[in-house]
């Protein structure tokens, strides 16, 4: 089981007049088979938090620890834009992040491509695919390393509504099946309520303002009364925190 421990995390960019506080004194524990959504207005440090957790950025202060059964956990990262190597085929993009190129690895990559319905697109270059298909390749890439924790930064925000909805379902399905931890950034409260059992609300200045548990059964239908109530509850929190204006 994976575990994330964040202690007194502080992150600043720039110096002097250009100084920006991206995260301020964040303390947080996530463990087990959770689906945690991080919501908040743009610029509140959501991407920065994920970048620190995945080792792209280093904290200014404080510590982060991601472990899985006592050893350092392997993270998978799905970015807001697919971030594929345009000069490599879809299959080679998946192989790029693997530790080896053995037959077993290749089969695993193919399996995850099939899972996002792109089993026959392995020989294509990313430029030959639509935006939605590229994003699915990005998702397959993150899954293909079979990470202990899956980080996703607004993965569906560039997609059309129908594709996004289908992918949300697929994601929920995979989370349910693999029992992996997912940390999911979004600025869409409806999406967060539909997918997660825990919602973290961040405010401008990178402060963690609220930690909401949502204990409703899956799959959740946005039209369902209880889901609508939960969503209204989160939106009310937003109002209280005066986040809607931003």
């Amino acid at each position, binding site marked *: 089981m994976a575990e994330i421990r964040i202690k007194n995390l502080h992150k600043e960019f720039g110096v002097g007049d250009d100084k920006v506080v991206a995260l301020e004194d964040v303390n947080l524990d996530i463990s087990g088979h959770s689906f945690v959504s991080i*919501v*908040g*207005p*743009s610029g*509140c440090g959501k991407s920065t938090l994920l*970048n620190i957790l*995945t*080792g*792209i950025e280093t904290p200014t202060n404080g510590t982060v620890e991601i472990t899985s059964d006592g050893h350092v956990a*392997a*993270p*998978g*990262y799905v*970015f807001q*834009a697919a*971030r594929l*190597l*345009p*000069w*490599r085929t879809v299959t080679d993009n998946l192989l*790029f*992040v693997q530790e080896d190129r053995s037959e077993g690895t290749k089969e695993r990559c193919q399996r995850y491509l099939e899972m*996002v*319905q792109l089993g026959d697109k392995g020989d294509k*270059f*990313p*430029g*030959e*695919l*639509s*935006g*939605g*298909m590229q994003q*699915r390749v990005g998702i397959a*890439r993150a899954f293909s*390393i079979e990470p202990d924790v899956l980080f996703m930064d607004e993965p569906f925000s560039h997609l*059309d*509504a*129908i*594709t*996004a*909805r*289908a*992918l949300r*379902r*697929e994601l929920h399905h995979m989370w349910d099946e693999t029992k992996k931890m997912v940390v999911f950034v979004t*600025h*869409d*409260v*409806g*999406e967060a309520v*539909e997918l997660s059992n825990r919602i973290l609300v961040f405010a401008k200045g990178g402060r963690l303002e609220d930690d909401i548990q949502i204990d409703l059964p899956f799959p959740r239908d*946005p*039209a369902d009364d209880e889901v609508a109530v939960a*969503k209204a509850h989160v*939106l009310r929190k*937003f109002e209280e925190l005066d*986040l*809607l204006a*931003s």
Partner: protein
Amino acid sequence: MTVTETRPGTAGSQPAPNPGQRLFAIPTKIAKSPLSARVLFPIVLFAVWELSLIAVEEIWPFAVDVLPTPSEVGGFMWDEFITDTLARKNLYETFFISLRRLLSGFAIAMVLGTALGLAMGLSRATNAFCHDWTMAILAMPALAWALFNSIIFGFDDRGPILTVILAGIPFVIVNVREGVRNTPRELFDMARSFQVPQSKVIRHVLVPSLMPFMFAAARYCFSIGWKGLVIAEVFGGQDGAGWTIKFWYDAHRAHGVVGYAAFFVIFAILFERLVFEPISRRAFRWRPQLQTEVVEEAFGEHHEHYGEEETARHG
């Protein structure tokens, strides 16, 4: 009154053409096609050439002895082609000599220019130190290099080769530096988050991202270097393409000068078509062609009404 605008080529929205229009459709199509325009160019060129010779003859009859006609030039080029020449070396020997110099200079300029460009792209201090020098070399006409080098080296290979290097290297430096400055940061971050080893990142991210810039550098370096080489050979050579055009000039053979100039153009075009284009096609296979159809495929089943999520956006 209503005004309807129809853009040409948008199918379905155009009214049916009347019979009169249809009659002219085919000739108009031929007249508008890029291919016929291309074919028309040499015809127009030769016509203007012949006609202006006739016109000049009217005004100043003696000039005709000097000005070459298309058939004279064509005949000269054919003789050169079958190695029947008055010059000391035939066409193929001449171009082989020049090509050897060009490729030596080109290779040196590419290697040195890439090294300098990398250093300048990676280090601000190096860039500050080299920037003005690069610009100065860039601003210097190839003619000046050719003259300097022939003074220094006299009549051997070094002058022309150095001219190629000096003419080409600023383009290599500038392009490689831009390439380094434009490396895709987000792809490096991606690789780091997936803990991809450094050597793999260099091979699969850094090098491919530099390729378009390297390629632009090579093309410029080659074509500018070629022009520099010809000038250098005029002043500081005993053979080569530049020397040979000067030979025809000194021999008062205007058709030789024009014909040799045409060989220069043919040489450059052949190189572009036979070397650069095939390499470019192979290296940039991944670039989406304009013709490639990008299809958004339906993903999974999605028959349900959607709309809730859109209304709950923040930030």
